[in-house]
């Protein structure tokens, strides 16, 4: 059974702006799914509708086979939500935020306390449990939003830009925890601006632009559709002029750094053979651009090219 099925979701705001133009989306149970798109693409509107924070104009949503319109309480009980913006009572202590959220889901006080302790410890917030929200850093607030979203043990967790503004160390720790949750059976859908995040975490992705899904599929499959990939090579010596390497497009960044574009018909082995033949030795090599980022930008560029 799919964890999520959205059919022909449309949203037109009161000012006439059409944020979603008939979105169809299906996410399998246990998936780790990314929703990518530029600002204003409709990601947050889509998530807002799934989580009952935004009224849809038309279309339907099913979560684990339950229809959002007919069984809203069941659907809500199956979802955990980590929103993009902080939405706390800033004057409440950390622990109370989580306990109250459990209470809203009908979890009795004693059990709510036990669960709050479990998730606050898990997200390394237990020592700050008595601190008021307003005294927490951005990273700690992000982690608290995850604890709050999990306290009723949802089968699906939806995260809208969960690591925005979070430093690398905390981001990596959050990734590890999300992987652990997913391995434990929780279906995860996230939107992110960090394409590295989507590439690293997600098995499937959908790219949304101007209120429509532009592409959806396995991350690996979508990446394999890339025609070219660009690498940056750091050379051992200096080169006076660019060598001619048949089939590879070279560009000189400086006299010891090269940028090489490889299309799908060529291999990296072929590149190194050609470089060796020209007496060029390579110290290190890296992708110029995150591959998913390139795919994403290519698609958005195409979409913009089509736009009137």
């Amino acid at each position, binding site marked *: 059974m799919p964890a999520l099925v959205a059919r022909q979701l449309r949203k037109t705001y009161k000012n006439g702006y059409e944020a979603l133009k008939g979105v169809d989306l299906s996410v399998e149970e246990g998936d780790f799914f990314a929703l990518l798109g530029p600002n204003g693409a409709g990601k947050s509107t889509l998530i807002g509708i799934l989580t009952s924070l935004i009224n849809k104009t038309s279309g339907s949503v099913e979560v684990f086979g339950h229809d959002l319109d007919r069984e809203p309480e069941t659907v809500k009980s199956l979802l955990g939500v980590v929103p993009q913006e902080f939405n706390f009572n*800033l004057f409440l202590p950390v622990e109370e935020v989580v306990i109250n959220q459990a209470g809203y889901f009908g979890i009795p006080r004693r059990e709510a306390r036990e669960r709050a302790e479990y998730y606050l410890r898990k997200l390394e917030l237990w020592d700050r449990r008595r601190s008021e929200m307003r005294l927490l850093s951005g990273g700690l607030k992000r982690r608290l939003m995850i604890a709050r979203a999990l306290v009723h043990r949802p089968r699906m967790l939806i995260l809208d830009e969960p690591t925005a503004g979070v430093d690398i160390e905390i981001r990596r720790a959050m990734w590890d925890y999300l992987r652990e949750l997913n391995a434990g059976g929780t279906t995860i859908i996230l939107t992110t601006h960090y394409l590295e995040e989507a590439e690293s975490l997600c098995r499937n992705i959908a790219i949304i632009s101007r209120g429509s899904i532009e592409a959806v599929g396995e991350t690996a499959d979508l990446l394999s559709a890339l025609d070219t990939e660009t690498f940056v090579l750091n050379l051992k010596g200096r080169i006076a002029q660019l060598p001619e390497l048949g089939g590879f497009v070279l560009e000189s960044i400086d006299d010891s750094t090269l940028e090489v574009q490889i299309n799908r018909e060529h291999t990296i082995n072929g590149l190194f053979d050609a470089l060796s033949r020209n007496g060029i030795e390579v110290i290190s090599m890296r992708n110029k651009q995150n591959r998913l980022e390139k795919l994403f930008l290519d698609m958005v560029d195409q979409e913009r090219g089509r736009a009137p």
Partner: protein
Amino acid sequence: MSRLPPRWNRYRVTFATLVSKEVTRFSRIWVQTVLPSAITTMLYFVIFGRLIGERIGPMGGFAYIDFIVPGLVLMAVITNSYSNVVSSFYSSKFSRFIEELLVSPAPSWVILAGYVAGGVARGLTVGVVVILVALLFTDLSVHSYLVTTLVLVLTSVLFALGGFINAIYARSFDDISIVPTFVLTPLTYLGGVFYSIELLPPFWQSLSLANPVLYMVNAFRYGILGVSDIPMALAFAIIVLFIAVLGFFSLYLLDRGVGIKT
């Protein structure tokens, strides 16, 4: 995973959580929520009860200070029930933590009941404090505990609902003070808190009957003193009617997501 308690147990816990949150909120800031009414009422008793009241003489067959006690208690209950809900619900909208409730399976009526109960709790707390202040100035005997309690609870329910609707429509903190300043206070002052409408000329008497607060003040005065300008059945009918209208309207707004969803 995701095994929630049976529906009614869940509703009960959600309601209790909301009430506990609201009571904790106004208790934490008691200096702003409870104390001002006690001080204001004390000033009313000193000025209108003692200094001026003794020169006014009896009203409705009672010493003036005894006559104004029910109205002053009810005025505090009205103001506090209203302002608790309007400020709490609007803050939750403003800081967006209303979303904590909107993503939960709590139905609209449980959310409404929780906020209203929080307003009633503050209204009654302040009402008791004001009664204790009144006891410093006069001996208070209660004519009917049943009527007194019923009117206190129903009035605070009614104005808590009013505060809720105000909060739904409010778009700024200014919007939550406009109604109390320009509607609630005049209605309360003109609702027979300080005088019997028998003192008014016939035209103003008739006009006063359009003021719903008059029915509550008089019903409460009947509960404490046993006298009223209004028949009790009519007073209760008006209060219950207003509760029903405001209650259903609040639920309608909440279900539609007016002011809280886009």
